[in-house]
């Protein structure tokens, strides 16, 4: 195709108006470089378009110019001109959007800090709460111990105050392994229940237990074995309808059917 035919093929118009395909455009540029007629035809058509469109104006919104200039002003401050030329054509954020973005960032940061503070407070509160729970449990436990003790003492006091209670003091025998020993039987004359109060007895060896006897018609009757761990409290033993005296012997663990006479620690006669 010679240059004249090429010019009349419509490629000049397509190229100038941006309608040519990339391949056609590349070919056109080669033709322009090679043939000044093609270049001249392009230039002539460009001028025609420009002359025609330059007088066909519609006024854009007046605020646009200052908006554009403030944006390029901001870009100028940011980068040297050489670099800007190669930056991709991103649409920069408008002024208001920047402020919104900045404000959001600040709010986000504030929120993060607040959350960290609240998390710290929360952790502290949890620790304090656990401490309180522990203290409370401790107090409750101590309280229960006190309650139990108080109950025991109240019961003991109730027994001692009871007017129907016969009191049999059992001092240590002269021949006792521990002559200074002492125990007291509280015997309910009505219900015949026997309560024992140990005033003083030596701790038995592990395989031995103390046993209380009632002497009925001259014969020893088992009232029960007892341990020494319930300090200062009344030990309820068997019910004895009738007795002349009470005595305590140290027996093998579990008790005996007849008392070991040389291991008699204390004895007391029932009076009245």
């Amino acid at each position, binding site marked *: 195709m010679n240059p004249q035919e090429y010019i*009349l*093929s*419509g490629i*000049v*118009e*397509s190229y*100038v*108006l*941006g*309608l040519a*395909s990339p391949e056609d455009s590349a070919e056109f*540029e080669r033709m*322009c470089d090679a043939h000044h007629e093609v270049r001249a035809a*392009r*230039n002539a*058509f*460009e*001028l*025609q*378009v*420009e*002359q*025609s*469109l*330059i*007088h*066909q*104006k*519609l*006024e*854009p*919104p007046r605020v*646009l*110019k200052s*908006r*554009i*200039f403030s*944006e*390029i002003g901001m*870009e*100028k401050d940011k980068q040297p*001109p*050489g670099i*800007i*030329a*190669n*930056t991709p*054509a991103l*649409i*920069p954020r408008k002024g208001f959007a920047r402020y919104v973005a900045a404000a959001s960032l600040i709010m986000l940061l504030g929120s993060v800090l607040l959350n960290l503070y609240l998390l710290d407070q929360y952790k502290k509160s949890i620790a304090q709460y656990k401490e309180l729970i522990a203290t409370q449990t401790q107090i409750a436990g101590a309280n229960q111990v006190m309650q139990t003790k108080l109950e025991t003492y109240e019961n003991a006091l109730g027994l001692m105050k009871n007017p129907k209670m016969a009191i049999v003091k059992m001092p240590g025998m002269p021949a006792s392994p521990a002559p200074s020993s002492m125990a007291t039987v509280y015997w309910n004359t009505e219900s015949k229940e026997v309560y024992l109060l140990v005033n003083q007895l030596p701790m038995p060896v592990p395989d031995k237990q103390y046993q209380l006897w009632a002497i009925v018609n001259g014969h020893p009757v088992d009232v029960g074995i007892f341990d020494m761990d319930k300090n200062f409290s009344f030990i309820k033993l068997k019910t004895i309808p009738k007795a002349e005296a009470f005595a305590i012997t140290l027996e093998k663990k579990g008790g005996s059917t007849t008392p070991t006479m040389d291991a008699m620690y204390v004895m007391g006669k029932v009076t009245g």
Partner: protein
Amino acid sequence: MASSETYSEQDLVMALKSRDDQAFSYLYDHYSGSLYSIILQIVKSPEIAGDVLQEVFINIWRKIESYDPLRGRLFTWMLNISRNASIDMLRSKGYINNQKNQEITDNVYGSDQVTQTNIDGIGLTKFLEKLKPEQRVLIELAYLKGYTHEEIAQIEDIPLGTVKTRIRNALLQLRVYLK
């Protein structure tokens, strides 16, 4: 930033490449109206056309370094930036959604004249009126909608060769019309 000075195209390009504010101001004062009118013919809405024009001038300022006077006049370069930006806008999600909403509104109120600025009788539109209908449709699809010849052949269901011939003839007529 008064732009009372006048520039030859060569001087203007030199000044723009050295990032001269005054030259840029001159460029805006002289060309924004024409470019705005082209943009408006493509995107239809004045509000959107304003946004596109802003983008176009910022791109001109950024890309002026890459403008090569050997490949064409400054105005042609700016015209193509404007047309490309407008067509990109046409194809953006935001624009498409907006158009859908607009169609609904138009259907409800039975009018499509309300939001569209009357652009008959200016620039290309005036030229388009002189074309045969079958040519006019194709030029509209190609220039104002940005479709390729292949896409137009599909849309209009006519052979690619016919599309090319009709567009070519229309463009050749344009040259005559512009004389």
